[in-house]
């Protein structure tokens, strides 16, 4: 790992947003927003040379402090990390633009905007650091950075409901990271290293490894809001300010999912069993159905969208049973791995774009009508045509209708499911799509319905509507370079690799 080409860009991805955040603190409200926006756009811009670097050289690394693992910390930018960083850059950049106009419009929240920008840049740096880190303890520090900043942003609206939801979120996050850290302690104790690559080679099966697998998986599942540990997500995401809801659901929960993916494929190979993968898959399938059903039952747009996040995250979990291979199946012969990984990556991207767009649209509706109850959606097509369009487009991607990114993700997931002959997951995928179609079409039906008389519509800046629409369209555009992205991802491990399990591994299994 340490003989790979080094690149200073890797370190800049973390350093630059933090530098901007620190500089912004010296300004008052107006200057702070400017510096913050500048920092956001700078961070977005920085992602492109970084991705190009990976495209040219393959995986690049950065040895922090000049120390190689196991003593030092290694940052690794491989294609998978590059895709996550690129998604964060694009979605984050558009959300930043939206936030810029949002906070100018909502002038009452002057102090709020002054806190938004540094916290958002710190959060972004934490996310980039998380995607890059190859060190388990450093990952703990980055998830704490992300966790603290995310909750701080979530409570910015200052309403009692958001504070309560925020505290619930924070307590769940702290408990989750403590579970994760307990696993780190055991892994360090049993191998004397924290580096993901070295750990993967050194780990031996045993009760300590299995326990570490359980606590770390559970801890990260809490933080990713996986069913049945999703209780904190809907209230926290629904009660936050619109730009914050968007970045919480599009980006923050993906961070811990990414760690989970890395751990399962690169660290815990020795301890995993086929059944463990199936178990996670069941959690995912139930999340898809339960989350979508709950979304259908909600009365407020933001709650619908927040519950839909639980469901969409469920699809991500359904990748695990495909990646964790049955005993006797060699990774070389498992031709469904590529579709499965493609499904995971595309689901992350499609949900990132579509859900961010959805929350931004919800924010626009709240600005225009003062609330987000279902009735606010009436006659949306005439009142806010661009927002109605954004909701429709993003909704189509969430359902998974062609030719959206969501369709591509679900199609690949189904392909992987049938190729691996685990057909029992198919009903959940399809059922989830039908339920999603249910609430999206309900929203659209209302959008065309006539409005109740006497509801004044406050003007909404065009820029806000454009941001939401751009993200919605983005969830379609990501399909265009699909060939390139898949090729790019397949160029290095772990993409298209699976976790081989052995029958005797069952003795050490966790279930």
């Amino acid at each position, binding site marked *: 790992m340490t003989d790979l080409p080094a690149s200073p860009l890797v370190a800049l991805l973390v*350093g630059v947003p933090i*530098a901007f955040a620190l500089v912004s603190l010296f300004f008052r409200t107006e200057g702070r927003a400017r510096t913050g926006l500048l920092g956001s756009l700078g961070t977005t811009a920085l992602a492109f040379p970084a991705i190009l670097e990976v495209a040219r050289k393959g995986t690049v690394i950065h040895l922090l402090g000049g120390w190689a693992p196991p003593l030092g910390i290694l940052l690794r930018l491989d294609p998978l990390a590059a895709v996550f960083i690129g998604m964060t850059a694009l979605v984050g950049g558009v959300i930043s633009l939206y936030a810029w106009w949002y906070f100018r419009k909502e002038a009452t929240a002057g*102090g709020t905007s002054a*806190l938004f920008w540094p916290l958002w840049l710190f959060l972004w740096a934490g996310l980039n650091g998380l995607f890059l880190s190859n060190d388990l303890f*450093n990952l703990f520090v980055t998830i704490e950075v992300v966790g603290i900043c995310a909750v701080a942003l979530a409570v910015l609206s200052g309403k009692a409901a958001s504070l309560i939801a925020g505290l619930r979120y924070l307590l769940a996050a702290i408990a989750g990271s403590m579970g994760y850290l307990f696993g780190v302690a055991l892994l360090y*104790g049993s191998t*004397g290293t924290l580096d993901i690559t070295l750990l993967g080679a050194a780990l031996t099966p045993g009760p300590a490894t299995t326990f570490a697998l359980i606590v770390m998986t559970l801890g990260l599942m809490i933080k990713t809001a996986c069913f049945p540990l999703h209780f904190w997500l809907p209230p926290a995401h629904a009660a936050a300010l619109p730009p914050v809801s968007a970045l919480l659901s599009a980006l923050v929960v993906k961070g811990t999912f990414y760690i989970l993916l890395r751990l399962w494929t690169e660290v815990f190979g020795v301890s995993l069993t086929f059944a463990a993968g199936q178990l996670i898959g069941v959690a995912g399938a139930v999340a898809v159905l339960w989350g979508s059903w709950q979304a259908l039952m909600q009365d407020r747009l933001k709650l619908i969208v927040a519950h839909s996040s639980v469901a969409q995250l469920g699809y991500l979990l359904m990748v695990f049973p495909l990646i964790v291979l049955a005993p006797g199946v060699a990774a070389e012969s498992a031709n469904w791995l590529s579709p499965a990984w493609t499904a995971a990556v595309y689901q992350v991207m499609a949900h990132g774009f579509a859900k961010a767009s959805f929350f931004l649209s919800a924010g626009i509706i709240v600005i225009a009508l003062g609330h987000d109850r279902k009735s606010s959606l009436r006659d949306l097509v005439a009142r806010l045509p661009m927002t109605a369009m954004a909701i429709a487009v993003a909704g189509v991607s969430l359902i998974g209708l062609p030719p959206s990114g969501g369709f591509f993700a679900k199609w690949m997931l189904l392909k992987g499911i049938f190729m691996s002959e685990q057909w029992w997951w198919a009903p959940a995928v399809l059922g989830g799509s039908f339920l999603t179609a249910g609430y999206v079409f309900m929203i659209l039906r209302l959008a065309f319905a006539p409005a109740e008389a006497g509801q004044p519509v406050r003007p909404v800046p065009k820029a806000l509507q454009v941001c939401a629409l751009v993200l919605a369209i983005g969830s379609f555009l990501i399909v265009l370079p699909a060939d390139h992205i898949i090729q790019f991802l397949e160029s290095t491990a772990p993409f298209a690799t699976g976790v081989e399990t052995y029958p005797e591994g069952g003795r050490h299994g966790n279930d």
Partner: protein
Amino acid sequence: MSLWIDSLLAVLAVFLAVRCLLAPTLPQCVFLFFAFGLTLALAWARLGAVDVAIAEAAIAAGFLGVLLIDALRDFSRSRSTGEGGDRPSRVSQGLVGAGVLVFLVVAIEAVWRVPNGGGLTALAADNLPQSGVDHPVTAVLLNYRSYDTWLEVGVVLMALLALFATGGREYFCRPVVRAVDPLLRQVILLFTPVLFLVGAFLLYLGKTEPGGAFQAAVLWGAGGILLHLGGWPVFASMAPWLRHLLLTAGFGFFLLLGFLFMAGGGALFEYPLAQAGLLILVVETLAALSIAAALTAIFAYFNGMSAESAEPFTPASS
């Protein structure tokens, strides 16, 4: 004999943890938590982790303890945490109890049978001459794994911003200006320079012995907190640029230095060996200063949240 002492300490820690969570009133809970923290500090001293013991006693038991006591002013109104709807139903308690019991059994088997990975002691010792310091823990914190330490200095600043977020705006609280006892003021005047001196001593000591930035930062922070309690507005009267400089100096300078050497062709946070000792001392000093400033500001905010504050702070919105 020593095995007995260790067993006693371990049992005491578990006992205090249980009692703390079962305490009938919140003040009791806080004081048992103190005792738990100090027992842990003793355990760490027994395990040869003097740095950790100081950090635990100072930050986790000391600083957090102060915050907990301050928070009691809001929460102790409902004196009893007992029956009045606090506990979940008996059924769910039973389920939780069973679940935790299973968890406990698995956890004990795991830690009992953890293989011996050997740790990184030898590697850390071998590279000590290249680190610029002589104390291994300081070498890890400020050289081998300085990236973690850098982020951690940042986390304290983020926690302060997060605190501000709960009220919707940035706000450096003034002290509660009721008549401060003259004796208290005198004692604080006497203690503050001593604290700053001892902090500086610990910081300097960190190069060769247990001590260093975090321990120093807590002592300095304690100085700041005392001044605040004595009625001196440490932050509130400061020029905004100065307090932001104080708060960001550690995090920022750390990064600036990293960028500088990176521009020279090295990695982030890679120091040339000849200057490593000095650079580490400067970085540590600024980090300690910033952490101390953040701790003081966090305490001031907490203190100002209290309803009896002279200048009760009301959130911006809502």
